[in-house]
């Protein structure tokens, strides 16, 4: 599915300074029953956001009025666990376009890149700096510059470069997806298939 282009994003951020946030927390399995990609944002972090009686847990950052924005900042090893793309959909549908962490699980990272959420991996030190600065001023703006591959804390000017391969970068900048690419080389794939041993 094509998605919105990503270029430069300037936004405040929501901090989740917890490590090993797994996909079962991002979206629990009982909310994976849809047959269309709708409504997943409502259940993002369902069991951390809501009590069992469906009232809001006021101490969870997503429910804290101080925090808002299009950037989610999580502790190291973000997105471990299941391959459910629903986790990335939930992040996107809630309104986030970028997730920042010092380490991402593989499949979650791929899923994000495939749907137009930019995973930005920083050093552990820079991540801590972001948490600290948001803690002291929740309106702190982060600037994600995809063309330059930099993440900058606006108020202090502190920045770091992040990695993304040039193929995926081009896709994100233009809103292209992999299926468009693969459909264009389908003849080549068909030829390849004739010579596979299995």
């Amino acid at each position, binding site marked *: *599915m094509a998605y919105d282009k990503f270029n430069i994003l300037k936004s405040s951020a929501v901090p989740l*300074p*917890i*490590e*090993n946030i*797994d996909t*079962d*927390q991002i979206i*629990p*399995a*009982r909310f*994976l*029953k*849809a*047959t*269309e*990609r709708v409504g997943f944002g409502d259940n993002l972090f369902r*069991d951390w956001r809501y009590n*069992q009686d469906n009232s809001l847990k006021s101490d969870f950052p997503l429910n804290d009025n101080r925090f808002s924005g299009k950037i989610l900042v999580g*502790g*190291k*090893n973000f997105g*471990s*666990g*299941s*391959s*459910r*793309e*629903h986790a*990335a959909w939930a992040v996107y549908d809630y309104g986030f376009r970028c997730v920042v962490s010092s*380490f*991402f*699980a*593989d*499949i979650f990272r*791929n*899923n994000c890149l*495939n*749907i137009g959420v930019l995973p930005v991996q920083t050093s552990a030190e820079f991540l801590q700096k972001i948490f600290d600065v948001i803690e002291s001023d929740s309106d702190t703006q982060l600037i994600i510059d995809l063309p330059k591959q930099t993440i900058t804390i606006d108020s202090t000017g502190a920045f770091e470069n992040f990695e993304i*391969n*040039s*193929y*995926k970068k081009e896709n994100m900048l233009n809103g292209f*997806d*992999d*299926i468009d*690419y*693969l*459909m264009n*080389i*389908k003849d*080549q*794939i068909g030829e*390849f*298939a004739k010579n*596979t*041993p*299995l």
Partner: protein
Amino acid sequence: MSKTLFDKVWDSHVVQQIEDGPDVLFIDRHLVHEVTSPVAFLGLKNRGVKVMSPKRTFATADHNTPTINQHLPVADPLSANQLKALEENAKAHGISYWGLGHEKNGIVHVVGPEYGITQPGATIVCGDSHTSTHGAFGAIAFGIGTSEVEMVLSTQCIMQPKPKTMRINVNGSLSKGVTPKDVALFIISQLSTSGATGYFVEYAGEVFQSLSMEGRMTVCNLSIEMGARGGIIAPDEKTFEYIKDREFTPKGAAWDKAMNYWSTLSTDEDATFDKEYTFDGSAIEPMITYGTNPGMGMRISGGIPTAESLDGGVATYKKSLDYMGYKEGDSMIGKKIDFVFLGSCTNGRIEDFRAFTEIVEGKKKADHVTAWLVPGSHKVLNAIKEEGLLDTLQAAGFELREPGCSACLAMNDDKIPAGKYAVSTSNRNFEGRQGPGSRTLLASPTVAAAAAVMGVVTDPRSLV
């Protein structure tokens, strides 16, 4: 140039390399289930595309299915709708579909090998992270997201950066009472849940060579729990013996041709890995987890590590122990448990039911324990009956349910209630994984059986 087993299989499937980008990787077998496929099929519909290779595509229903009264209509309308969508999509695209009630139905990673869909040297994907299971046969197998499911359905390829390689050697032999699950939980406890992220792992050494195919599947299944994309074990006589004459394995001349390819599938002697670990098998004990990720495992006779002994992450660690209701330094032996779950793509095979039965034979299930015994497939269910295990289990106060993923991820009604403790042979002990508020202790079928009869965490070696 010398190559690892992983490199050999990967390189032979690359259709195209993109500079500073992913490889276009050809996929030999695509396994499909009801939860991660509907949006992908919708994508095909929107593009007006048909499935490129229906014969390479296999669909089964497992995640969202009930494990009792499967002959009745599925009560939950959302689940029923998802199952119906898979059936209709399979039909529309000419894909074989093993739905509820079908004799070949079962957990996707259990039925794949059972029917010979899983073969050495193949690339196998599925919209499920435990696809790594199939690496036990010398295949490159890994989980993918729904966008990637759509790619494979429409073009039989995905775009993947090639992972780095890691080899984990476990030498020597295992002590009595130590199972493949313990080996895997031990490795994950050493590497952590992110220790192999970015890598594809080859398991090598005497311990893995000595394991049965079922045991190898358990180990490869859990590769994802240390962050690895997948795990792979070089095929050997045991592998070929297992797959021979199964429904989808090649026969006659085609078998001989395939064997020519399969016999090349081992790591060259002087090939190097990006990372390598070596452990001593005889030092591994029965394991159990005490926290909220699979890396939080310990030997069953030990104590819960103190936060001080950790390298950072103290706040997250304490949050995890709070959730479990445990304290640093606690012994796990003697902890009261409420539920036991035997099953899942990790430990839902016949060998797992044999191991469980061996422990409970002649004993009685503890009164306060609810036990869910869920075979991985109909084939496993039938074997349990044919081998007489069911009689032994029933005499000990246990019942069998029908096949499916069940309480491993609790999408259906098999949910552990909030605050309750479950010893589970599945793969994840994340918060709420087995039901909102549930608390999971991951362990082997042997440890689960000991807990089921004693009602508390028990070292199974004390029962034999």
